[in-house]
């Protein structure tokens, strides 16, 4: 594809844009520009600031004072949603923002109709606009079908068609390929290329390096809220890109253990259609197994299979020499498997309840007598023990859980499951949204649990965290195990190269093949 170097002046330019949330600098002094007729890839790890940047462009967030947004030659301190749309900056979010119960044509032409004069619908106009937009994209379809009856790929087309009706100059696509099959990705890329050739500027966000190298003209890498680099594709290599994405020095102290003894858990070739394929690994007593990979690689789905939340179609799970097939969390818990979910606030805790109630919830039966009356004294004692063991602060059992800090909330979720005396503890993104100091504390806690003989699985997309505590690291990519490496031998670049499609080690050809299937 042409590099469109001839288009000189950027349509959209950000100068010195920062965004601070209480306690977090999401973006710092970002300079960024998009020209008409280019696909500009935006790359970064989870939490690098991509979403914040998009939301500033779309007018959802107001940047901190001092920065300038320049659109079509006009400078703004910040944009409103209306101004942003008025300038043709249209974001297609991952959920597409469609109206599920309205027809395709109405979804496409909705805003145009609402902005037109009069109070009646002009259905003929709706039909015409929708047909024209789809023709522009080069796709055909039933205009009268309800949007929620469409497949994900087709819903995306409707969302793109709608952006055309808005007269989009800059189209922001957030992870547009995350739910598409390879054939659908090809079709999408044809459309993206076509729009670029028609002179649209496209901001394309994706984790899949393969795709970025196929589609983009320029690339911008964000990391920890900073812009690391912007370069034309020709100046970028996979290796360079990965090192830019990962970048930071591994300063975190490593807390590796002895590496475990007897095998507690053995997973053999488990498959689940659409989730993961042919996953095998072992877990030893006293070790921490880190599982990493990009979002959507099937990490969470895999561990949910161990906890009875996502039963595999085939394959075997062995626990201490016995074959198990947990069908519900309750069953898994009885078998001695504990699971600390990623979203602790919604899945792991009852925030309005106090610490004691939360901690003792899974073991409430133990305090009940035959008449199901609860021995509150016994319960209080046990709760206090656990609070002490995990060093929860403040150490009041009657404190409302929502009032605690993120790190302490996480400790309570872990405490809750420790109370069940599990053989295996699975934690999913244990330090998500927790500040740095508390992170280390959680890591220490996990390490000490392993040292006491527990087998721990930690899922995380933060590579420093994986490296900090994992005795072994399992990397997943697109539903499969792409590597299992020793924690001591691993570094960020190695893990990242196993995580991305067509990483460092000449997977390019295979990646290409996948797209032709």
């Amino acid at each position, binding site marked *: 594809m042409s590099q469109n170097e001839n288009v000189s002046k950027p349509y959209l330019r950000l100068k010195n844009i920062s965004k601070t949330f209480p306690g977090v600098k999401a973006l710092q002094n970002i300079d960024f520009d998009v020209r008409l007729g280019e696909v500009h890839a935006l790359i970064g790890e989870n939490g690098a600031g991509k979403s914040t940047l998009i939301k500033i462009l779309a007018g959802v967030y107001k940047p901190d004072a001092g920065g300038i947004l320049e659109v079509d030659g006009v400078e703004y301190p910040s944009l409103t*949603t*209306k101004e942003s749309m008025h300038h043709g900056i249209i974001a297609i979010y991952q*959920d597409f*923002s*469609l*109206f*599920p*119960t*309205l027809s395709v044509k*109405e979804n496409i032409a*909705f*805003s145009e*109709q*609402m902005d037109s004069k*009069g*109070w*009646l*619908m002009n259905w003929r106009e709706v039909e015409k606009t929708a047909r024209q937009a789809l023709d522009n994209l080069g796709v055909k379809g039933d205009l009268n079908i309800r949007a*929620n*009856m*469409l*497949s*994900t790929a087709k819903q995306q087309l409707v969302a793109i068609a709608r952006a055309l009706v808005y007269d989009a100059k800059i189209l922001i696509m957030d992870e547009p390929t995350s*739910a598409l*099959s*390879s054939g*659908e990705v090809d079709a999408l890329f044809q459309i993206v290329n076509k729009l670029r050739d028609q002179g649209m500027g496209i901001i394309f966000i994706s984790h899949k390096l393969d795709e970025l190298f196929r589609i983009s003209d320029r690339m911008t890498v964000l990391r920890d809220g900073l812009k690391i680099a912007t370069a034309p594709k020709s100046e970028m290599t996979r290796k360079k890109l990965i090192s830019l994405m990962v970048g930071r020095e591994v300063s975190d102290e490593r807390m590796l253990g002895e590496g475990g003894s007897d095998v507690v858990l053995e997973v053999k070739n488990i498959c689940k*259609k*659409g989730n993961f*394929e042919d996953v095998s690994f072992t877990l030893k007593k006293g070790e921490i197994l880190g599982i990493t990979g990009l979002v959507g690689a099937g990490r969470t789905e895999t561990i949910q299979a161990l906890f009875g939340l996502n039963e595999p179609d085939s394959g075997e799970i062995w626990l201490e020499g016995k074959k198990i097939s947990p069908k519900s969390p309750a069953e898994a818990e009885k078998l001695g498997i504990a699971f600390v979910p990623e979203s602790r606030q919604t899945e792991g805790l009852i925030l309005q309840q106090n610490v004691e109630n939360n901690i003792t919830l899974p073991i409430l039966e133990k305090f009940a007598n035959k008449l199901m009356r609860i021995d509150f004294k016994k319960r209080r004692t046990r709760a206090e023990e656990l609070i002490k063991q995990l060093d929860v602060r403040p150490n009041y059992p009657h404190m409302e859980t929502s009032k605690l800090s993120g790190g302490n909330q996480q400790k309570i979720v872990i405490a809750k499951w420790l109370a069940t005396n599990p053989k295996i503890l699975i934690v999913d993104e244990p330090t998500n949204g927790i500040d740095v100091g508390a992170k280390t504390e959680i890591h220490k806690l996990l390490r000490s649990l392993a040292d006491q003989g527990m087998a721990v699985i930690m899922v995380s997309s933060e590579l420093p965290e994986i490296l900090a505590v994992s005795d072994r690291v399992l990397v997943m990519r*697109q*539903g*499969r195990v792409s590597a299992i490496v020793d924690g001591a031998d691993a570094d960020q670049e190695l893990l990242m190269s196993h995580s991305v499609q067509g990483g460092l080690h000449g*997977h390019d050809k*295979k*990646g*290409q*093949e*996948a797209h032709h*299937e």
Partner: protein
Amino acid sequence: MSNRVKQILKAREASIVIMLAVVMVVAFLMNNTFLSFENQMDVIKSNAVLGIAAMGMLVVILTGGIDISIGGQLALVTVLTGQLMKETGFDNLIVIYLLGIVIGGLIGLLNGLMISHLSLPPIIATLGMNTIINGFLKYYTNGAWINQLPQKIIDFGMIKLFSKPGEVGGQVGVPIQFILFLVAMILTWFMLRWTKLGRSIMAMGGNRVSAERVGLNNKNLTTFAYVFSGMMAGLAAITYTSIMKSVDPNAFIGYEMNVIGAVVLGGALLSGGSGSVLGTFLGVMMFAYISNGLTLARISTYWQSIIVGIIILLVVSFDMVKLHRETKRMTKVDIVPIGD
């Protein structure tokens, strides 16, 4: 099966049409007069109030809300206008109708403001409103009926269009209440289908976040839906007085369940965004036929409510199963075939 037949069967209204047909056949077999023109018109006349109120409820349910105070609104309007007519002898029916619509609309406005601006859950706001209205009516009427209404409204209630003498005496024709029901339906249909307002309500009911992103004013749209529901309740209330020739302040206790039941029977989803005037009409007729058919078959009214309840559960379960299958089929994402 041809595609066309399949398409018709797939339509949301299909299940209710089938059920309706079954009920009609059973009712006809039990009593041949069921299908007579005269009986059909009687059925529609006595269910016009339900039908008009259901149109308002449909619009509220489309926003994803619910209006529990619909029974209270009906009772309030019948009592206030009835009292006015009785005390003053005022009998300008157009003004009475307008007055009823305004009273209903005002109650709807209060509901709407509580729900959209104070963010009260619709079920709580309207339940509270219903309790207040019923309490007020008990205090105001002491439960006594209002009789001796002006002759004009009684005559109005007996108007039949295209009437001719029936076989067993009396007049047979299209009752005026049917016309009012028809007007309410056409008005609602037109609004939902042809106006930007109606389309915005459908859109918002389907996805509030998307609606906000395209700049719809969710608060105003929600408020409007309750005002519309209240106005329909006002229209229904005066129509009720014209049929009954008197006012019973307790007539509408528990009536909200009939109205909501009819709308839900008609295929509207309580989650919002989904439902139609045609479906709601069929839902109302289903209600009407069951009770009429059972009456003709001399089955006690206690059994009637049991049977109505069972049918609501059956039809709605059927819809839900169908919906589940559809969404399951649609959300299935193809797995990416991997080359290595």
